[in-house]
C-alpha cells in the first residue's frame, strides 16, 4: 500500500529564555517533537499514543501547520507540504487543506457558539466550493445524515446539542470537502462512555464507506486498539515504538510501551495483569535525559542507555522499537 501521509524527521522546538537574576539569561529550547517519522497509508488508521506532554498533539498540529514545524518534511501524496505552507500560495494551501482535515478534542470549544450548525458546515463549502453556492444546502443535509444527525439540525445552535452530537458536527465539518485523511485529536476523550462507542462506530463506518485514512491521537488505549491498524508510541517528543496494532498490544518491544499498557486498568476484577508500575514521573522537556529519554525510569536500562540514543530498529521492519535492550 502506498503511503498517503509521510512524516519524516518532523521536529518542533520552542525557544525558552531562562531568565536569571544575576547571570546572563540562558537561551535553551524545548524539543516538543524531536525527529518523528511515520507514515499513514490510504484507508488505514495510525494511532498516536502517549501521555500528556509527549508531543503527540504538537505532531498533529505541525502536520497541518497550525504550528510551524522547525525541521523535517511532511509529504502528502508524495509532495512536501511544509514549504507550501511557508510559501503562502493560497491556492496551493487550499488544495492541501481540502484533503487533510482535523477533528478537535473538545466539541464544546471547537464550534463557533454564535453560528448555527448550518453556518458552521457552510464555512468549508464557502471556502472550497465558492463556484456552486446552490449546492451547499443539499450538501449540508447530506453531511448531517452521514454523521447520524437530521438535516433540520442545521438550524440549531451548538449549545442545544449534547457532547456526542457536537462531535458529530465536528466530524461533518471535517468531511464537508471530502478529505482523504482526517487527523482526530482525542475525539472521544471528553465524551461519556456510552457516547464514546457511538462516535467510534461512526468513525469506523465512515472509514469503511469513504476509504478515509485516520491519524488518531489519544491517550485512551482501548479506543486506539479498536480504531487503529497501526500504532505509534511517543515519549518526551520521540517516537519509541511503532508497528501493527496487535503486535504493539500483545508483543510490545519497548519497555515504556509495556508499562503504559499494563498501567491501563482492565475492566475485569482480579485479572491476572502483570502490573508494571513505573517509578517516578516524566521528566520536564527542558531537562531531557541524555541517551534514551526513558532510561531513568526503565527497569532494564543498560549503561549504554544513558549515553547513546537508540534508533528505531530493525530499520525497515513494520514493527520497530527504539531500545538498546528490547523485550
Amino acid at each position, binding site marked *: 500500500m502506498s503511503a498517503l501521509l509521510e512524516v519524516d524527521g518532523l521536529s518542533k522546538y520552542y525557544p525558552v529564555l531562562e531568565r536569571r537574576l544575576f547571570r546572563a539569561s540562558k537561551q535553551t529550547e524545548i524539543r516538543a517533537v524531536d525527529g518523528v517519522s511515520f507514515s499513514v497509508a490510504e484507508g488505514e488508521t495510525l494511532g498516536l499514543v502517549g501521555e500528556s506532554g509527549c508531543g503527540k498533539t504538537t505532531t498533529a498540529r505541525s502536520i497541518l501547520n497550525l504550528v510551524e514545524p522547525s525541521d523535517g518534511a511532511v509529504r502528502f501524496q508524495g509532495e512536501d507540504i511544509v514549504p507550501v505552507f511557508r510559501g503562502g500560495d*493560497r491556492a496551493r494551501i487550499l488544495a492541501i487543506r481540502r484533503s487533510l482535515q482535523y477533528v478537535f478534542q473538545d466539541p464544546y470549544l471547537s464550534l463557533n457558539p454564535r453560528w448555527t450548525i448550518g453556518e458552521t458546515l457552510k464555512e468549508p463549502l464557502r471556502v472550497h466550493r465558492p463556484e456552486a453556492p446552490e449546492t451547499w444546502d443539499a450538501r449540508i443535509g447530506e453531511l448531517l445524515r452521514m454523521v447520524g444527525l437530521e438535516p433540520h439540525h442545521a438550524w440549531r445552535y451548538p449549545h442545544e446539542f449534547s457532547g456526542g452530537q457536537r462531535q458529530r458536527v465536528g466530524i461533518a465539518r471535517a468531511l464537508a470537502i471530502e478529505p482523504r485523511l482526517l487527523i482526530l485529536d482525542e475525539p472521544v476523550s471528553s465524551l461519556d462512555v456510552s457516547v464514546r462507542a457511538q462516535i467510534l462506530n461512526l468513525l469506523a463506518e465512515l472509514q469503511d464507506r469513504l476509504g478515509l485514512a485516520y491519524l488518531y491521537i489519544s491517550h485512551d488505549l482501548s479506543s486506539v486498539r479498536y480504531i487503529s491498524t497501526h500504532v505509534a508510541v511517543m515519549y518526551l517528543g520521540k517516537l519509541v515504538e511503532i508497528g501493527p496494532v496487535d503486535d504493539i498490544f500483545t508483543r510490545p518491544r519497548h519497555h515504556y510501551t509495556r508499562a503504559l499498557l499494563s498501567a491501563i486498568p482492565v475492566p475485569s476484577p482480579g485479572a491476572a495483569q502483570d502490573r508494571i508500575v513505573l517509578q517516578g514521573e516524566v521528566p520536564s522537556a527542558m531537562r531531557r535525559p541524555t541517551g534514551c529519554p526513558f532510561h531513568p525510569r526503565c527497569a532494564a536500562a543498560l549503561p549504554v542507555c544513558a549515553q547513546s540514543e537508540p534508533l528505531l530498529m530493525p530499520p525497515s521492519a513494520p514493527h520497530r522499537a527504539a531500545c538498546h535492550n528490547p523485550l
Partner: protein
Amino acid sequence: MSDATLPAIAAPRQRAPGIWRQSWYRFRRNRAGLIGLAMVTLVVLVALLAPFAAPFAPDDTSAMLRGAARRAPSALHWLGTDRNGYDVFTRMIYGARTALAVGLGAMIIASVIGVIIGGIAGYAGGMVDELLMRFAEFFMVIPVFVVILAVVRLFGIVVVGTWLEDIPNLNLMTIIVLLGCFEWPPIARMARAEFLRLRNSEFVEAAHCIGSSRRDILLRHILPNAMPPLIVLVALGIGGAILAETMVSFLGFGDPRAVSWGQSLYFNYEALKVAPWAVLSPGAALFVTVLGFNLLADGLTDAFNPRTRQ
C-alpha cells in the same frame, strides 16, 4: 443507533434562539438591568422628542425680560426658571441631547480606536502587541481632564476669526473627540484580551484548518465573539463620558452654545439656596442618565455571562 434525536420543540425550518436572543432572555430576568434599560430608554426618548416635549425654546430667556428669572415652579414654568431666565424644564430636556451626543459620540470614537488597536495587538501578538499596549498605557497616564481644559481654551482662541468659527458646536465636538481619544485604552485592553483568547480557541483553529481567510476569521469568527464584554465596557463608558463632559462644563469650559446639564449647574450653583430647582433638576437628570447606563451595563454583564445561565 445514535443520540441524534432531539426533542421536537420546533418546526424544522424555525431557527432556535441564538446567542443574542438567549442573552436577552437572561437580561429580562435581571431587575436592575431592566430598570437601567428603562431609564436609558426614557433619556433617549426625551432627547429625540425634545422639540415636542419642551414647552419653550432652549434659548428662550424672555422670562428675564418679564422679570421672572429665578422663579419657583409654576403652571407656566413647571420646574421654575433660572437666573438667566431660562425655563429649567426645557433646558433639562434639551440637555439630554447633549449628554447622549457626548456619551455616544465619545464612546463610538473610543470603540473604533480601541477595537482596532486592541484587536491588532491581540491577534498579531509579539512585538506589535508590546508596542501597541505601551502606546495605550501612555494614554492612560495622561490626565484627560487637564488636556481637555487646555485644548478647549487654546482652540477657542485659535479659531477666532477663521471659518472654523462658523461650525456649530465646535467646542462640544472638540470635547467629544478628546474624550473619545482618551477613553479608548480600557476598550483596547479588553479587545486585546478577547482577541488573544479567541485567536487560540479551537473553533478559530478549525477555521484555519478549513482554510478560511484571515479576514473571515477576524470579522466573522473573532469579532462577534469578542463583542459582549466590549458592549458592557462601552455602556459603562457612556456614563463616564457624560459625567466628564458635565464636569468640563461645570468648570465653565463647556460649549456656550450647547445646552448642557453641567453648564446649568455652572450657571446656577451660586443660587443653590435661592433657586434650588435650577440646580437640582439638571442634577437629577444627570443622576438618572448615568445610573441608567451603569445599571444597564450591570444587566448586560449578567446576560452575557453564561455562568448565570443554570
